[in-house]
C-alpha cells in the first residue's frame, strides 16, 4: 500500500510540471506584461524607464529562464507577491483558505447527511410516488444554475423576510465576542452553504440510489433474505455497507472542489475565501496569485483522486493495489 501511494505521488510530479507549463504559457501569451502594473503615471511612457522596470522584474529574460526561476522559488515555498496589494501570495492564501475550508467542509457534511437518506429511501421505494418525486427533485437540483438559486434565496430570506444577512462573513459595525461572534458567522454561512450543497446533494442522492439498487439485485442479498433475515438486517447489514462504497469515492473526488469550486458562490455572497480570491485575481490580472491558485487546485485534485482510491481499497477488501 505504501509503495502504491509513493508511486502515485511520484507520478504526480510530471503531471504538475505539465500543468504549470501550460498555465505559464497561457499567461505568457497575453499581450503586454507585468511591467505595466508597476508603471509610474508620469514616467510611464518613457522607454528607458520601462526597460528598467522590466529588467528589475526579470522580464527581459527569455521564457524558459523565467519559468525555471518561478519553479525554483515555488518549490522553496516562495510564491511571489500579489500585484494588487504587494502582499506575499502565501499570506493572501493563508488568510482565505480557512474561510473556504469552513464553508466547503460544512456544505460537504450537509450534502452527505441529506443525500444518503434520500438515495436510500428512493431505492427502497423504487417506482413509487415518493421515488418519482425525490428523483425528479434531484434532477431539478442538478439542473438549476447555482447562481440563480443564490439570487432566489437572497431574494426570499434576506430581502423579503430579512431573516439572514446577504453578504460577507461578519456583520459590519458590530464587534461580537465569544458565542455571539460564532453565531454571527453561522448566520452568514447558512445561505452560501445551502447554495453549495444543492447540486452536490442532488447528484450524490442519485448515485446513492443507483448503487443501492445495484447491490439489492446481487445474489448474496437473495441469500440473506432466503435464510430468513429480517428486511432491516438485510438492508442495514448487507446491502447498505456495499452501497456506500461509491459515495466514498465521490466524496474523495469532491474534496478539491471544496477549495476551488466556490468561485461563484463566494463571489455572490462576498465570502472572503479562495474562490473569490481566484475571481479577483483573474479580474485584476494578478498573475502570481493566478499561478498559485491554479497549482494549489491541481495539487488538491491529484491528492483527492489518490485519497478516493485509497479509501476505495480501505472500504472494499476485494480491491488490492500493487
Amino acid at each position, binding site marked *: 500500500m505504501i509503495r502504491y501511494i509513493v508511486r502515485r505521488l511520484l507520478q504526480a510530479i510530471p503531471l504538475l510540471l505539465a*500543468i504549470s507549463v501550460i498555465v505559464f504559457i*497561457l499567461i505568457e501569451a497575453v499581450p503586454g506584461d507585468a511591467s505595466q502594473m508597476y508603471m509610474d503615471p508620469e514616467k510611464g511612457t518613457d522607454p528607458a524607464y520601462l526597460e528598467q522596470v522590466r529588467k528589475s522584474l526579470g522580464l527581459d529574460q527569455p521564457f524558459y529562464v523565467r519559468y525555471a526561476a518561478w519553479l525554483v522559488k515555488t518549490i522553496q515555498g516562495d510564491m511571489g507577491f500579489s500585484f494588487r496589494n504587494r502582499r506575499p501570495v502565501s499570506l493572501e492564501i493563508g488568510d482565505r483558505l480557512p474561510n473556504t475550508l469552513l464553508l466547503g467542509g460544512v456544505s460537504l457534511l450537509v450534502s452527505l447527511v441529506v443525500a444518503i437518506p434520500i438515495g436510500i429511501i428512493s431505492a427502497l421505494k423504487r417506482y413509487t410516488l415518493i421515488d418519482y418525486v425525490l428523483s*425528479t427533485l434531484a*434532477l431539478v437540483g442538478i439542473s*438549476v444554475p447555482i447562481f*440563480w438559486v443564490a439570487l432566489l434565496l437572497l*431574494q426570499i430570506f434576506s430581502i423579503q423576510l430579512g431573516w439572514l444577512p446577504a453578504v460577507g462573513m461578519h456583520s459590519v459595525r458590530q464587534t461580537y465576542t465569544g458565542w455571539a461572534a460564532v453565531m454571527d458567522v453561522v448566520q452568514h454561512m447558512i445561505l452560501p452553504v445551502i447554495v453549495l450543497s444543492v447540486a452536490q446533494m442532488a447528484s450524490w442522492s442519485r448515485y446513492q440510489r443507483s448503487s443501492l439498487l445495484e447491490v439489492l439485485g446481487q445474489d448474496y442479498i437473495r441469500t440473506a433474505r432466503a435464510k430468513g433475515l429480517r428486511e432491516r438486517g438485510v438492508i442495514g447489514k448487507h446491502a447498505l455497507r456495499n452501497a456506500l462504497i461509491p459515495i466514498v469515492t465521490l466524496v474523495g473526488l469532491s474534496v478539491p472542489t471544496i477549495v476551488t469550486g466556490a468561485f461563484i458562490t463566494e463571489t455572490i455572497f462576498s465570502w472572503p475565501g479562495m474562490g473569490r480570491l*481566484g*475571481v479577483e485575481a483573474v479580474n485584476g490580472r494578478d498573475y502570481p496569485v493566478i499561478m498559485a491558485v*491554479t497549482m494549489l487546485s491541481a495539487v488538491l485534485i491529484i491528492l483527492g483522486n489518490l485519497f478516493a482510491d485509497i479509501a476505495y481499497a480501505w472500504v472494499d477488501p476485494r480491491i488490492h493495489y500493487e
Partner: protein
Amino acid sequence: MNELSTPMALQEHIKPTPQWKLIWRQFRRHRLAVASAVLLIIMLLMAIFADAITPYDPNRIDTAYAQGRPQPPSDIHALGTDNYGRDYLARALFGMRVSIFVGVTAVIFEIGIGVTVGALAGYFGGRLDNFLMRVTDVFLSVPGFFLLLIIAGIFAGTLLTLVFVIGALNWMTVSRLVRAEFLSLKEREFMTAAQCIGVPGWRMVTRHMLPNALAPIIVAATLAVPYAILTESALSFLGLGVPPPNASLGNMLQDAQQWLRTAWWIWVVPGVIISLIVLSFNFVGDGLRDAFDPQLRR
C-alpha cells in the same frame, strides 16, 4: 446460438425488430423524457426563429422606457424592459439562442476531440495509447473552471473562443469512454472476421467500431450539453463570458443582481429559461441512457 438451432423455415418468418424501434419503444416509456424532448424542440425553434417572434432588436434602446430602472411588463413590451429600455422578451429569446448555440457547438467540438483521442488510443494501443492517456490525465487534473476563468478573463472572449475553450477542457470523459469501448470491441469475433477478409484499418474503425460505440457517445453528448450551457452562463454571470451588449442568459442574470428588490421579472425570466433548458436536456439524456440499455427493455 438460438439462431443456429432455429429451423430455416421458421427463421424466414421472424422479422427482427429494428434496433431504433426498440430504442424508441423504450424511450417512450419515460414520459418526462418525452415531454422534455418536446419542450426542447419548442425552445430550439423559438431560439432559431427569434427574429420572427419578436419585432424588437434585443440591443436597441427604447428611449421612452430607458428610465434608469427596469420597466414592468406592458402591452408594448410583453416582458417589460431592462434599465436601458431594451425589450426583455427579445433579450431573453436571443440570450436563449446564444446559450443553446454555445452549449451545442461546444459539445460537438468536445465529442470530436474525445472520439478522435479515444479511437486512436483504443485502436492502436501500445505507446500511442499510453501517451494519449497521460495527456488525458493532465487535462483531468487541471482545475477546469478556473482555467476557463483565466482564459475567458485574459483573452476577452468572442462566442467562438468560449466554444473552443469549453470544448477543449471537457473532452476527457468521452475519450476514456470511446477508448474503453474500442478496447472491448477489438476482442469480439466480428472484428477478427473483418480482419480475416482484409478490411482496411480506417474502414474497420468507421464501419464497425464507431457505430457500435455510438450509444454511449450519444448519451454522453446529451448530458454534456447542459453542463456546457451551465458553464457558459456561469462565466457570463461572472462577466467573463458573452461580452455586452449582446444578451446571454448568464449576463442577463448578472445585470439582474441589482434589481432583486425592485423588478422580479428581470431575475426570474432568465433563470427559469436556463433551468428549463438544462432540465430538459438532463431528462432526455436520462431517457436515452435507459433506452439504449438492453437490460432495461421490457
